[in-house]
C-alpha cells in the first residue's frame, strides 16, 4: 500500500525537529558522562531544552499536517 509523500513544509519541520532532538540527545549523552554541577545544568538547560523544543516542533508538524 502506498500513501502520498509528505508535503515539503512537513518535511522541513521534521528535519528541524530531528536536528533539535538529535543535538539535545547528543548534549544529554555527553553530560551524563561528566559528574559536575555544570553537567547537570547543561543537561537540563541545553540538552533537555533542545529535546523539548524538537518534540514540540514534531507535534506542531503533526498538528499542522492534519489540519491542512
Amino acid at each position, binding site marked *: *500500500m502506498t500513501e502520498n509523500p509528505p508535503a515539503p513544509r512537513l518535511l522541513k519541520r521534521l528535519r528541524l525537529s530531528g536536528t533539535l532532538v538529535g543535538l539535545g*540527545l547528543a548534549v544529554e549523552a555527553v*553530560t*551524563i558522562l561528566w*559528574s559536575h*554541577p555544570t553537567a547537570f545544568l547543561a*543537561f537540563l538547560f541545553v540538552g533537555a531544552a533542545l*529535546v*523539548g523544543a524538537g518534540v514540540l516542533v514534531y507535534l506542531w508538524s503533526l498538528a499542522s499536517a492534519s489540519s491542512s
Partner: protein
Amino acid sequence: MPYLEEALVAIVLVAIALIALVVLRPGLTATRGGKVLTFLALAVLPGLATAMGLSAHMERSKTTEFCLSCHIMEPYGKSLRVDDASALPAAHFQNRRIDTEHACFTCHTNYTMFGDVKAKMTGLKHVYINYLGEKPKKIELYEPYNNRECLHCHAGARSFEESDLHKEMRADLASNTTSCLECHDVVHQVGEKEEQP
C-alpha cells in the same frame, strides 16, 4: 540504578540513528510503519532518555564526589579526613556512621535541588557565583543548622537517649531552641586541622 547511564547512552544512540534515518529518508514517513518509527525517534525515545538522564543526574548529585567536584568545596572534603576524633564530619565519615558515598547529602539534606524552591534558586545562585561572581572566603550556612539532620539518626539511639544531658535538653533539641552544634562544635573548621594520612 546500575547501568542507567549505559542504558541512556544506548537509547540516545538508537534514537539518533532513527532520527538520521527519518531525516535522510523522509519518504518513510508516508507509510504507517514510518510514522510509528518517526514517533519513536522524535518523541518516545528522546522523552525516555531525558527522564532517565534527569533521574541519573539527580542521583549523582547526592554523591560526595559530585559535591566536592567544585574547587571551592575541596577544603570541606578534606575536613572529612582530618585526624581528629572530635570533629563531627571526620568522626562520622571515618567511622562509617554515614554512607561515605553520600557524606555531604546525609547531613545537608535541604540543599540545592533536594530542598524547596528557595533552596533550588540558591543552588542556581551558587553556580552563578562559582563562575561569574565573587566567591566568599568562607562558606557559611544561610540559616542555623537544623537539629533535624542529627536527630534523624540519633533520636532513638541508645547512646543518645541514655545521656543525662540529652535527656535534659531533649525538648529544646527537638524544637531547635538549642543547637546540637552548641556542644558538638568542631565541624568544618577548614584549614585548621591536619588531614589523616
